[in-house]
């Protein structure tokens, strides 16, 4: 290697105009090729009549959309997706704030409590749901056994067998698995509250509830918004809870967009319809993110 090429290479390794694009390019190209391109493909598919048997692309305009909109199961799935996410995340905020308060307190055996409390979030969702499938079993549910022995019921509850109960079960499992994540995020916020603020409140004689509602909750609001954002995206886009727990049943009462897109698009082979159903998630995600980021930014945290 001549001195000149060495010097030239040395120059390249120092030049920011060369380095910045070179270091960014692989990651950007990867994302464009495998997120950008499939996203465009999803839109194209939704405007076609492609199936697995005949994947050829024929433009059909909004025909696929009007077809899925006419389907009562789709409308059910759209409503369920929205309400499951909203109700679970309201519950998540309440329980996560309580759990975060518990986890920042000092007590013995904390590592064990922390380990047990994190289980619902760190376990793969489909496996965590498997433990619920058995806990909510139609005959051998231990919850039923407890209720029977307390004399509250005489037979079985059939948690997953009746529409209303099945919907509540799905919401409960979502809440249960997201609370630990939200609690960890809120914990980060709690520990970030400056000590002077806490001391000032103590000096002023503020008690538990006063401190909670006058200081902690207003200061935590932005980070709770971040927790809700993550929680919302995780519930709206999730397929495993519904897929493992109920497969959308009984009679589509727990169907959500993700599971319906899978049943139509992959199991049924109607690629265009599956793609169109899944695309309905996009405006929801964008709207919710915009609202939550604005809320968080107004508080000048993000």
């Amino acid at each position: 290697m001549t001195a000149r090429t060495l010097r030239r290479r040395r120059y390249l390794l120092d030049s920011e105009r060369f380095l910045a694009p070179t270091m960014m390019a692989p990651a950007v190209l990867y994302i464009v090729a495998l997120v950008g391109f499939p996203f465009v493909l999803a839109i194209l598919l939704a405007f076609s009549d492609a199936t697995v048997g005949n994947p050829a692309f024929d433009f059909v305009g909004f025909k696929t959309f009007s077809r899925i909109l006419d389907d009562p199961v789709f409308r059910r799935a759209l409503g369920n997706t929205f309400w499951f996410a909203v109700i679970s995340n309201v519950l998540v905020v309440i329980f996560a704030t309580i759990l975060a308060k518990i986890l920042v307190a000092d007590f013995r055996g904390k590592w064990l409590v922390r380990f047990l409390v994190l289980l619902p979030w760190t376990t793969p969702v489909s496996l965590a749901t498997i433990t619920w499938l058995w806990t909510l079993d139609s005959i051998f549910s231990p919850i039923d056994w407890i209720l029977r022995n307390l004399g509250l019921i005489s037979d079985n509850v059939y948690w997953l067998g009746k529409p209303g109960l099945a919907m509540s079960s799905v919401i409960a499992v979502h809440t249960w698995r997201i609370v630990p994540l939200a609690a960890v995020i809120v914990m980060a916020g709690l520990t970030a509250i400056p000590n002077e603020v806490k001391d000032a409140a103590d000096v002023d004689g503020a008690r538990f509830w006063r401190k909670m509602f006058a200081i902690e909750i207003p200061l935590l609001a932005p980070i709770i918004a971040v927790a809700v954002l993550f929680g919302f995206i995780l519930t709206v886009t999730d397929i495993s809870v519904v897929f493992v727990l109920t497969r959308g049943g009984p009679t589509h009462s727990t169907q959500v967009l993700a599971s319906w897109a899978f049943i139509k698009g992959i199991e049924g082979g109607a690629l265009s319809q599956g793609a169109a159903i899944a695309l309905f998630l996009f405006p929801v995600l964008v709207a919710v993110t915009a609202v939550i980021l604005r809320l968080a930014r107004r508080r000048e945290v993000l």
Partner: protein
Amino acid sequence: MDALDDVTLARRKARTRHRMVRIGIYGAAIGAALLAAFPFLWATVTMFKQSSDLYVKANNPFWFNDPPTLKHVKLLLFDTNFLTFVRNTVVVGLAVTIITLLLSLPAAYALARLMGVWGERMGIAIFFVYLIPPTLLFIPMSRVIATLDLQGSLWSLILVYPTITIPISTWLLMGFIKGIPRDLEEQAMVDGYSRVGALTRAVLPLIFPGIVAVVVFAFTLSSHEFIYALTFNKASAVKTIAVGVPTELVRGDVFFWQALQGAAVFIAVPIALLFNLFLDRFITGFTMGAVKG
């Protein structure tokens, strides 16, 4: 005399109050732990139960009415594909980790150090990739994988999972790199290293915690991810645990409950332990990425 009584009274009152608070904290902690872990505790009892004990409605579900047995654990480990699923998950996790680090480390460095305002804008753009989740992409992605002829191969997951890990890891590592004083690199460059040399010698060792977080994240993803794995790989030999366990340990209407619950516990416990080790680091990473952006 009266004043003294007041003081003892106040002191006693404070002590009872303190004791009540302690009891309250322990009660709340135990309650939260039981609520969170209930299905797992019940799963742990279940996996050692004999069928003759398990399938009797009147039996106490939380204790062994017949002696416990290892039969179903053995069935899970040696007569099902459970260990194959575990191996597949680890292989995918490893490959995804390598790809993610190779692509997101340089990108994070460029964003944090070389690109100024554009770096911040790109950082926000990366966050928005999060809004196009697998649920939105799995149908077109199934066509991409079919065209590349990767169906039924672990390569399909190895190729696709970095689309999820790269944006988040770049974001996370960017936070870590911003936390390192620029002087360190400048010193290294004064000492005669190029910028790339300074990166590998001065920056890399300092962001080791961030790299560990990326590794944990890649493995967590390859064990959690469901919809891509369900869509791409139908053959038992190439399933990961998230899809393999719920689809293979149920045959028609027959649920192998003990084996299923055993599988859930065997996977859940090590991952939760790992997260416990890194939780504080995770919180730091999260607040650095999201709060200070």
